[in-house]
């Protein structure tokens, strides 16, 4: 199959991400990867839950002293909205509207970038305001490993989208790059799935007690 064949909205297949063998393989391989990612994050959540508020002395701040609802709320809204914008991008991908797909992916990247800025502000705030660092306590190590790993996923997701957009800027949408965009958007949704558990388990449950 000619991967670089030109398509129009009318000749574009219904499931472009799974039309080629490479696309099918990517799709399957990526879901296997997401199963592995689930386990990876589970180990970090388990460690965090076991070590939450475990500090060497009374002068260390605990979860309920540090976390602030407004900040977490803004970050949650940003990431959730970015998940919807990447759904819009895939909607236009399936309709073979390359320009709109690029636009929505760009919005997704900007929202992700805003999320990242808030996270950097948050970490910086904890370090300087509460002396809550990676090495200050078992609680600190577990917290930064879990939330930081998620943040690193956001960075990778942003880099992935950006590279795809730059590399395919002039190529147009075809069966070569459609599976690539699709898989990247799956990754982005998975990042939001993990964040749902982080804002629930780490922040909300951390503030309740």
């Amino acid at each position, binding site marked *: 199959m000619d991967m670089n064949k030109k398509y129009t*909205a*009318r*000749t*574009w*297949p*219904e*499931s472009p991400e*799974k*039309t080629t063998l490479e696309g099918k393989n990517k*799709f*399957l391989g990526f*879901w*296997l990867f*997401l*199963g*592995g*990612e*689930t*386990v990876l*994050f*589970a*180990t970090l*959540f*388990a*460690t965090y*839950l*076991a*070590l939450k508020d*475990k500090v060497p002395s009374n002068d260390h701040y605990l979860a309920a002293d540090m976390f602030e*609802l407004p900040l977490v*709320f803004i970050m*949650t*809204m940003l990431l*959730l909205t970015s*998940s*919807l914008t990447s*759904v*819009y991008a895939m*909607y236009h991908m*399936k*309709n073979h509207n390359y320009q709109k797909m690029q636009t929505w992916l760009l919005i997704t990247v900007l929202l992700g970038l805003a999320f990242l800025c808030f996270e950097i502000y948050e970490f910086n705030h904890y370090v300087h305001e509460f002396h809550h660092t990676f090495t200050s306590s078992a609680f600190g190590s577990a917290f930064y490993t879990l939330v930081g790993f998620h943040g690193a996923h956001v960075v990778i997701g942003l880099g992935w989208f950006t590279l795809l957009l730059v590399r395919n800027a002039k190529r147009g949408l075809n069966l070569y790059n459609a599976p690539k965009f699709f898989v990247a958007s*799956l990754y982005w*949704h*998975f990042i*939001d*799935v993990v964040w*749902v*558990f982080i*804002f*629930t*388990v780490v922040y*909300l*449950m951390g*503030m*309740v*007690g």
Partner: protein
Amino acid sequence: MAHETTSANPKVNYEYRRRKARDEMRGQVTSFAMMIFMTFIAFIIVLADFDKFYAFPILLVLAAAQVVLQLYYFMHMSHKGHGTAALFLYSGALIAFVTILTFLTIVWW
């Protein structure tokens, strides 16, 4: 092949596919609205200062519901051909559950 799915003949059912995609997108926006709504409820529960005996289960159910929407609608798991994807993901989720259960029960210092 006579029994090919609709994807084999995109020209004929173009209008139908457009309409189907539009309807699906409307469903996506609805699930987004539900996710936002559940997020609001979750934050309100924390603001309202419920006892954790009540708050924890509600928060976890809200999170699980949001994740189901995310997986089945945003990530299209409700579509055909996601059997193996579900097998991979749920295998991971099973190990995840057991791992967290273990750490919550045998780590006690």
